[in-house]
């Protein structure tokens, strides 16, 4: 039982716990909190894999921006407990089993040690951050610029959506 594995199991457990409570919690704020737990523990896993930059970005953007936005909206709309309606018969009867089936099959299909995936031959990727940045500005420069454009559009879209139309 090496420490890495130990840490992995702890963080993985946290993540699963968070995900589970995301499903089970009644109040959106609690769901959001549990989602934050998932994200932070995922960041921990990234660190464990030596992807420190991604880990930090995960926390900064996901934890610090996106989820804050969610919580902000929940607070703004003063969203209460979700009412437990079942207007959709399909979802009521078939939904859960199907989703669980999906989960199970996914997990089962992935869980094959002999799958073509090498088991982390080398510990960490050296200078991952530098590689990422150079890659962002060389190989992936067009997608990168496109994402900036996407963000711009998203901002404008959000503004248009959320502003009350002037009478």
């Amino acid at each position, binding site marked *: 039982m090496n420490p890495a594995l130990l840490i992995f199991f702890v963080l993985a457990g946290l993540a699963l716990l968070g995900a589970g409570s995301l499903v089970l919690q009644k109040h959106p704020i609690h769901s959001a909190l549990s989602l934050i737990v998932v994200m932070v523990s995922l960041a921990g896993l990234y660190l464990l894999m030596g992807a420190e930059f991604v880990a930090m970005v995960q926390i900064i953007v996901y934890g610090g921006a996106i989820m804050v*936005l969610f919580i902000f909206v929940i607070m703004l709309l003063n969203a209460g407990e979700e009412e437990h309606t079942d207007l959709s018969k399909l979802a009521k009867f078939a939904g859960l089993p199907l989703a669980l089936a999906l989960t199970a099959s996914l997990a089962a299909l*992935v869980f094959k040690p002999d799958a073509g995936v090498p088991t982390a*031959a080398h510990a960490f990727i050296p200078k991952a951050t530098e590689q990422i940045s150079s890659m962002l500005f060389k190989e992936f420069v067009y997608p990168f610029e496109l994402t900036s454009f996407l963000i711009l559009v998203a901002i404008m879209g959000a503004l248009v959506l959320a502003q009350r139309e002037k009478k």
Partner: protein
Amino acid sequence: MVPTHYYLVLSAVLFGLGAVAFVFKRNIITIFMSIELMLNAVNLAFVAFSQAFGKVEGQVFVLFVIVVAAAEAAVGLGIIILIQRNRQSLNIEKVNLLKL
């Protein structure tokens, strides 16, 4: 060292849970969050692969996914605010104008 397929299984399960929440929850915001959860699961798989193959491409993709997620959250939450404003409810089953 942690075997890669551990990560993969974890990501698969997280993804599945996201799907479960997706069909199980009624609150639009929560459904949104479950989508984020799925995205995160995918990110995990990406990073795991990137580490397994010793290539950073995977991590770059994660960055892109995060950016897209951010944009999506911005627009989506805007829409949610609109929905709340117009229908005074966040229950997705009450938002059903799109039918015969």
